[in-house]
């Protein structure tokens, strides 16, 4: 097995004069869960699409499972798209048989593989039901089962849990992780808590390029220990600059009425804040630094005004 499932170097891809990927470079180690995090339009779905279609990039180099992109390579990949791909007029079992045959799985193997996967994803009694009768969460599980039919080595998940509830999400991930043991999973998501919980490594993407990457723990280690969310509608640029200059203060970012500050010691930071702006601070929430804090340290908010 290759050391890296995906190696991308300086890739460019344009759509109608806009560069969706612009100098995109990324190495995805084999047999891990790797998260691509970034705002809408950052290029993560474009990269997933390029891998799913096994298309060579316009410029730069792309290596998938140790080889150059080619149609034959698609037998070793699987993609769970943002939208369902199951024909609502088909029955769940029929859909899996159709998808399995298209991906070259012998009919005899499907006869055992389909019931096994349906059972594993909690759909064992729904094989004969029309896809249209399945709930949103069940359809996502059906898509995941479909993706594993041909035993892929690289599983591409493009926001696979969008629109499903927390319980369904937990079931999906639990089953995926137990069913895809030696499989590399590349997950594109906007959900930072999901990425924090399931990913071994993540990359933050903005403007069509990777702006930071590493394990969630590594990325969080670069932060101050605590994150303070302050409801402070009247905060001025001068006040925020002063806060940013205090010893032990890390990032200071503003998002509307909320100011988010990372700091080494909230217990000394908060009294100082109230002394600076008496009566202007409406509330303060203190939390341990999360992947979200690391994300916002690297990825600029579109509507907020970063003060530092």
């Amino acid at each position, binding site marked *: 097995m290759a050391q890296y499932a995906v190696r991308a170097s300086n890739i460019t891809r344009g*759509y109608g004069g806009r560069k*969706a990927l612009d100098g995109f470079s990324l190495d995805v180690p084999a047999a891990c869960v790797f998260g691509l995090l970034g705002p*809408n*339009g950052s*290029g993560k*779905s*474009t990269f*997933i*699409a390029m891998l*799913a*279609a096994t*298309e060579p990039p316009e410029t730069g180099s792309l290596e998938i499972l140790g080889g150059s992109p080619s*149609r*034959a*390579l*698609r*037998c070793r*990949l699987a*993609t769970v*798209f*943002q*939208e*369902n*791909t*199951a*024909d*609502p007029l088909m029955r769940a079992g029929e859909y899996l048989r159709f*998808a399995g045959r*298209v*991906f*070259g799985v012998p009919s005899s193997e499907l006869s055992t593989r389909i019931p096994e996967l349906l059972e594993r994803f909690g759909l064992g009694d729904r094989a004969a039901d029309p896809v249209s009768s399945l709930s949103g969460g069940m359809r996502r599980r059906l898509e995941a089962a*479909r993706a594993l039919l041909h035993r892929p080595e690289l599983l591409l998940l*493009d926001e696979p849990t969008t629109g499903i509830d927390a319980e369904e999400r937990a079931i999906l991930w639990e089953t995926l992780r137990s069913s895809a043991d030696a499989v590399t999973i590349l997950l594109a998501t906007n959900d930072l808590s999901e990425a924090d919980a399931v990913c071994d490594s993540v990359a933050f993407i903005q403007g069509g390029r990777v702006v930071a990457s590493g394990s969630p723990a590594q990325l969080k280690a670069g932060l101050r220990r605590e994150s303070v969310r302050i409801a402070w509608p009247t905060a001025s640029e001068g006040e925020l600059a002063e806060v940013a200059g205090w010893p032990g203060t890390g990032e200071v970012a503003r998002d509307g009425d909320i100011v988010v500050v990372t700091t080494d010691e909230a217990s000394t930071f908060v009294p100082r804040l109230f002394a600076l702006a008496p009566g202007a601070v409406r509330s303060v929430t203190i939390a341990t630094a999360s992947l979200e804090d690391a994300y916002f340290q690297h990825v600029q908010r579109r509507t907020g005004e970063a003060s530092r």
Partner: protein
Amino acid sequence: MSAALVIARRDLLAVVRSRSQLYSSMLTPILFLVFLGNGVSHGLEPANLPDGNFTAYLVAGAVVMTSVFSSTFSSASYYRDRDSGVLRLLASAPVHPRVLLLGKSLAALAIGVVQAMAVLLLAAPFVDFEWQYGLVAGLFVSLAAIVLVNLMLTGLAQALASRIQTMQGFHLLMNLALFPLLFFSGAFFPIDGLPAWLRVLAFVNPLTYAVDALELAVYASGDATFIGLGVDFAVLAVLAAGTYLVGLARTPKLTYSGA
């Protein structure tokens, strides 16, 4: 009331901006007026019908019309697959887009042939067919003509469906292309009685040869006023092969793209 007006305005704007809807609503009735009226006034006299039986005469046209509708509806499944996401899955599969087209066209062909043959066989008990070549040979000739015309129409529909973005646009083009062809094919009235300029149009119309072959197989008691099976099958075979191959060659843009 103002909400109703706002909704009405929005719908009107949508219609004005969707040219296909505008044109298709008006063009089909105009085609009926100009071509069907002209053809019926010239051709629908018992003396112009080979056996004076208009119901029996219409069967060949009805069979070809079934093929037209069937190929159009079957190829429109391309849009259903796109909207349901199935095309997206196929775009990531290790098969060439032409294999996808081949599979879809085989289904369209099978449906078209079964439906057209069903119309022919359903009509048989109620219509006094001549079967001038005998029942078995007549059915074989009919089947061959039906296969060829469906192959041709499926190829045409597929070539259009894989390139036209909207289902409305696809239906508009198919209607615009195929309704005039149906009118001038001898499906509704004999082409013998038509004015010279309309007869010229009839003879460059591929559906004319399908209708002619079917009439010869099931209805005609002679072939004096018909084109003849040899010419019919030669024209149909060349056009069917050509159109079908063009349909398969028009590889659709099956890419999954996001941003």
